[in-house]
């Protein structure tokens, strides 16, 4: 069959008066250029373009971090060299903060310690407060006390955030302070999640309770951040938006960790199966809404010829997510809670990848695919049959 098609096409090309072999004897420059432009159809594979971009972005970020680290090390050297020779200027940077905090914890300094506890972002004593918290975390030996302390720290950040939002300050000052809080909270939530993973699973009651507390705090914090974001003008949000998105993501991880912990301990008396089902259904419903929202976005933003290939990839991912969510629903109904959790995790991974693709595709021209201008030119100079 393919041989017949090949023969037919060969005859067709040979018979083509404008462009084929026979006509090439009198091929005009325009015909020749049209034929060269057939090669425009050669383009890199979408998945290669996307993965190479991700690798490139990673390399760029790593390079930047390395530079920053080198700068910090240099600054640290400078700091300690001046310490030895001159009386140092007391800049409230992290190094001083840590030294003072350890001094307070070990030596029992009272006045500065109490003062720092009341300090808010932007205050000179705020780095001392953060360092004291770190020192307390290091000094607490049991997992339970560490998680409890982390929950307290998140509470503290929540209070600070509400103070920052309520303060009558310039937008820039406010944004700087919110950023400071957000940076710290992200660290705390990630550390709490990590701590939870290492928790002693022989005490399910404590582990589940801790996971619940962290999940609730993360949720409260996400809501507080949304409020804080609203209090700032749009022009200074972009960087903060990214950080808030990262914290929200960490919060979602905390939520998943809670669910995982409950399912891992579903046979213990402390965990109610109904609670797990409710939580799983909430997750599934949230993801279904996310899929619908992205589907709408695909329809609105990716209908241009420039974005057809990425649109095709996104639609495929949406279908996969829908399919997996359906299976997750079935697994919940069948009582396979661990199976449902795994399916939810798979959908989350797909969704996260799709979100990144949508985000990256906001650039004016999409990664190496045939652009609308290319398509228009091809339409103007179609392959003559």
């Amino acid at each position, binding site marked *: 069959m393919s041989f017949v098609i090949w023969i037919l096409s060969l005859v067709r090309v040979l018979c083509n008066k404008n462009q084929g072999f026979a006509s090439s004897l009198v091929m005009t420059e325009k015909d020749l250029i049209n034929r060269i432009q057939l090669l425009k159809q050669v383009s890199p594979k979408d998945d290669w373009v996307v993965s190479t*971009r991700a690798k490139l972005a990673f390399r760029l970020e790593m390079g930047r971090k390395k530079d920053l680290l080198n700068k910090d090390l240099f600054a640290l050297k400078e700091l300690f060299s001046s310490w030895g020779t001159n009386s140092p200027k007391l800049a409230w940077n992290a190094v001083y903060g840590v030294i003072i905090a350890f001094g307070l914890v070990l030596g029992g300094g009272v006045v500065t310690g109490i003062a720092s506890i009341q300090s808010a972002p932007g205050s000179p004593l705020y780095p001392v407060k953060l360092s004291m918290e770190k020192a307390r975390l290091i000094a607490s030996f049991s997992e339970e006390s560490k998680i409890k302390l982390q929950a307290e720290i998140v509470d503290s950040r929540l209070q600070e955030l509400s103070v920052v939002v309520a303060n009558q300050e310039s937008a820039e000052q406010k944004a700087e302070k919110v950023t400071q809080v957000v940076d710290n909270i992200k660290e705390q939530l990630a550390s709490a999640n990590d701590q939870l993973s290492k928790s002693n699973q022989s005490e399910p009651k404590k582990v589940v309770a801790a996971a619940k507390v962290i999940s609730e705090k993360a949720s409260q914090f996400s809501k507080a951040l949304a409020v804080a974001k609203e209090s700032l003008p749009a022009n200074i949000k972009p960087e903060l938006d990214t950080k808030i998105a990262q914290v929200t993501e960490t919060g979602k991880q905390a939520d998943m960790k809670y669910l995982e912990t409950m399912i891992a301990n579903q046979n213990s008396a402390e965990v109610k199966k109904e609670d797990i089902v409710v939580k799983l259904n909430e997750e599934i419903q949230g993801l279904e809404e996310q899929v619908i929202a992205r589907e709408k976005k695909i329809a609105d933003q990716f209908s241009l010829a420039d974005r057809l290939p990425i649109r095709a990839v996104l639609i495929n991912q949406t279908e996969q997510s829908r399919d997996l969510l359906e299976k997750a629903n079935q697994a919940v109904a069948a009582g396979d809670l661990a199976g449902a959790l795994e399916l939810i995790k798979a959908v989350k991974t797909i969704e996260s990848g799709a979100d990144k693709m949508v985000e990256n595709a906001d650039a004016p021209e999409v990664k190496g695919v045939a652009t609308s201008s290319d398509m228009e030119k091809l339409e103007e100079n179609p392959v003559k049959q």
Partner: protein
Amino acid sequence: MDKFTEQQFLECYDQHVGKIYRYIYFRVNAEELAQDLTSEVFLKSWQSLSLKGVSNPRAFFYQVARNLVTDFYRKKDKTPISLEEITDKPISDKTASPLDLAAVSLDMNLVKQALRQLSPDYQEIIIWRYLDELETKEIAEILNKSEGAVRTLLSRALGELRGKLT
């Protein structure tokens, strides 16, 4: 000229990766190798563009790509893949009939084979002008030649390609 930020550089990547890949692909005629060399173009370019800006990043990417392809052939002492090895995957076009697809694919291969028979200088000038649609001025900048010399080269390259296709 300002140095490039990461964001600007990634935007440049999005804009030019397809064309740089295509240029390299036609020069080396192997998909994986074209992918590797294209990645290298952007990594090497970042090293320069993050330290000093350039007025025309596209021309800069092509210069880096050109040097990498030249280095590749020089170091590995490789010759381009033989014509017999040049086969393309069928072009996927949902609107075209199998017959149309076969015809286009066949014609594409003929052009591609003819292009491969040209000297590297002729190949790249045709790719730049008619596939990537660079202006003569921009090609002159990449090749470090006058615009007149580029026009002459282009005319000869087209003449030779036409000869190969007849």
